[in-house]
């Protein structure tokens, strides 16, 4: 049985124990039908031209995670940002781990989708927001919607801000030979609310994991949301991350994506600007080696006047790794005075690595500022010589240059400890120790 058939035929079993009268369930029914019709995207789909899911579909993934596996905090501590205090929503093989988590209902709600689906106190928020930003058309998003049951639920009421950043951590134990996970996150920051979120997927063994994640983020008027995606997984872990962001007037949403490890990563990052004076920031650092593959598909839809978007993606590709950047910007006819900026710079470290970079601009307004730029090159030999002539060995000098290359993405990280952690991951990846904290 191929993976599609397996998923479709599992849907009935999935329904067992769910409240079938819940309004959300109707959405699941519609979604599974859409997935059944469309199936997994193939290379014939323009948006999937450079990323093939064929190999993954041949793997016999378990679809239903078993019971929670107990993990000792000390064994997984390194995957947390542990040097600062944070709220934590932790899942082990897709099952919520209360032991590793620290949730709250003190003024803000930092808890679980399963609670939000089942408890009456959350019903109104679910009705207003659930599946309202996510695509009803895209088949993998539909697949996730169909199986939506668990994930992080974060609700920040008007004028509130959680006391500390929130970490969402998905751990895979490897108890299953191959496991498919479909977390569903909902993040709502009401008017003038503020929140910082760090999300990470981490496999603990080299058993295959395939995560198809959907996150919906809603930013009310004047809200500020910072979302950091740390993608530094094992080389047997694949991730399709579908993130949908809906912004209202004068809100600021910044998403940083650090793609530093994994087998196949596909980021579908979609911004919808449903108000004026909105600021959207999309930044990414990608550093790959081996046969790793990362595909960034971004969309910024400017639907109202006087908004801005800033995209800056840096990629460094070694060995036989492959990268894709496809940045789509739509400016509606009424979205005058839009200021949309997009930049994608890449360094190829080896003859076997490749990058496909494509800006895609659809502009229907006539008074806008849209700029885009893309570069693909090698490390500058003259700069390398400069550093080496100061006594810095070749390897360290290269690392320093790569760091410098990725720097303007890192400098907008607003949690210093996270920035330090990312720098450390990068330094480890490059196999260097600098004489100072990068």
């Amino acid at each position, binding site marked *: 049985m191929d993976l599609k058939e397996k998923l479709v035929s599992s849907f009935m079993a999935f329904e067992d124990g769910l409240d079938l009268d819940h309004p959300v369930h109707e959405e699941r029914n519609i979604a599974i039908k859409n997935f059944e019709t469309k199936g997994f995207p193939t290379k014939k789909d323009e948006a999937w031209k450079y990323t093939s899911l064929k190999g993954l579909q041949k793997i016999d993934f378990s679809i239903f995670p078993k019971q929670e596996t107990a993990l000792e905090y000390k064994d997984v501590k390194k995957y947390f940002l542990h040097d600062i205090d944070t709220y934590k929503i932790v899942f082990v093989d897709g099952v919520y781990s209360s032991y590793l988590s620290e949730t709250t209902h003190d003024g803000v709600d930092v808890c679980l989708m399963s609670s939000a689906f089942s408890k009456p106190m959350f019903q109104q928020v679910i009705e207003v927001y659930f599946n309202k930003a996510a695509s009803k058309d895209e088949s993998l998003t539909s697949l996730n919607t169909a199986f939506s049951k668990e994930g992080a639920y974060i609700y920040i009421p008007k004028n509130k801000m959680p006391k500390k950043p929130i970490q969402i951590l998905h751990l895979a134990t490897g108890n299953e030979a191959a496991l498919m996970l479909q977390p569903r996150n909902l993040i709502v920051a009401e008017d003038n609310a503020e929140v910082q979120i760090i999300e990470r997927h981490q496999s603990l063994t080299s058993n295959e994991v395939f995560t198809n994640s959907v996150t919906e983020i809603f930013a009310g008027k004047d809200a500020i949301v910072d979302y950091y995606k740390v993608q530094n997984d094992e080389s047997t872990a694949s991730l399709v991350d579908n993130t949908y962001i809906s912004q209202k007037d004068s809100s600021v949403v910044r998403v940083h994506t650090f793609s530093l490890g994994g087998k196949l990563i596909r980021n579908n990052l979609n911004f919808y600007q449903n108000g004026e004076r909105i600021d959207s920031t999309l930044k990414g650092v990608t550093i790959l080696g081996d046969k790793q593959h990362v595909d960034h598909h971004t969309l910024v839809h400017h639907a109202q006047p006087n908004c801005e978007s800033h995209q800056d993606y840096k990629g460094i590709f070694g060995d036989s790794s492959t990268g894709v950047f496809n940045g789509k910007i739509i400016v509606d006819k009424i979205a005058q005075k839009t200021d949309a900026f997009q930049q994608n710079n890449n360094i190829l470290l080896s003859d076997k690595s490749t990058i496909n970079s494509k800006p895609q601009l659809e502009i229907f307004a006539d008074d806008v500022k849209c700029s885009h730029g893309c570069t693909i090159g090698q490390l500058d030999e003259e700069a390398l010589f400069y550093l080496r002539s*100061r006594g810095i060995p070749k390897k360290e000098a290269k690392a320093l240059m790569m760091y410098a290359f990725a720097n303007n993405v890192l400098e907008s990280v607003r949690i210093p400890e996270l920035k330090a952690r990312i720098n450390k991951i990068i330094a480890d990846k490059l196999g260097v120790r600098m004489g100072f904290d990068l």
Partner: protein
Amino acid sequence: MLEIKNLHASVEDKEILKGIDLKVNAGEVHAIMGPNGSGKSTLAEVIAGQEEFEVGEGNILLEGEDLEELSPEERAHKGVFLSFQYPVEIPGVSVTNFMKTAINESRKAQGLEDMPANEMLKKIREKSEMLEIDRKFLSRSLNEGFSGGEKKRNEIFQMAMMEPKLAILDETDSGLDIDALRIVANGVNKLRSKDNAIIVITHYQRLLEYIVPDFVHVLYNGKIVKSGTKDLALELEEKGYDWLKEETAV
């Protein structure tokens, strides 16, 4: 200190250095002058170990040791320093952190521990004051957005920090106004000692009014065609290089 014997170097099969002989003793300052394209910067980079150049015949000896097999970083560890004509920008790495890395890498190569932080700070303060460098400047990203003059002053600051045995200043005067030139030259003069040697590469005699050389060499078409004392620089200033071209053509 430095002995260059019959040095040939080429890039992409084009020979640029065609047999250079040069001897620089400790305590001396040598100036190398010459028209554009004569091979001055190539000579500087070949000494520092730029791998882009193919070194054919000849040797470069530093304190009797042949540098041929050594990488640029190993040469730096042995005390070779090149002040670049076009210093490179490194965003996100401050001048201070860059210097810490450079100094500690050299110490590591010599089997020494990292320089203690307070000692490092003291040294940075001392050397930056000597070159009249603002403290704020040291926390800026290396060379990023620096003016031409700031870049050159920063090169000499690095030289002061690294205390090389052999320093090669490649057109350090270009891009400097007269005040900056004076500060940079004063800095270089303070770094002169009986134990080190300096090679000043320049187009113009102007810098040599401040950094007075013991010897002046004229490099033309990949060879040193004339050597003399500082008076040779004055002669070149007055007559230009055309007479040399004619002389060597004959």
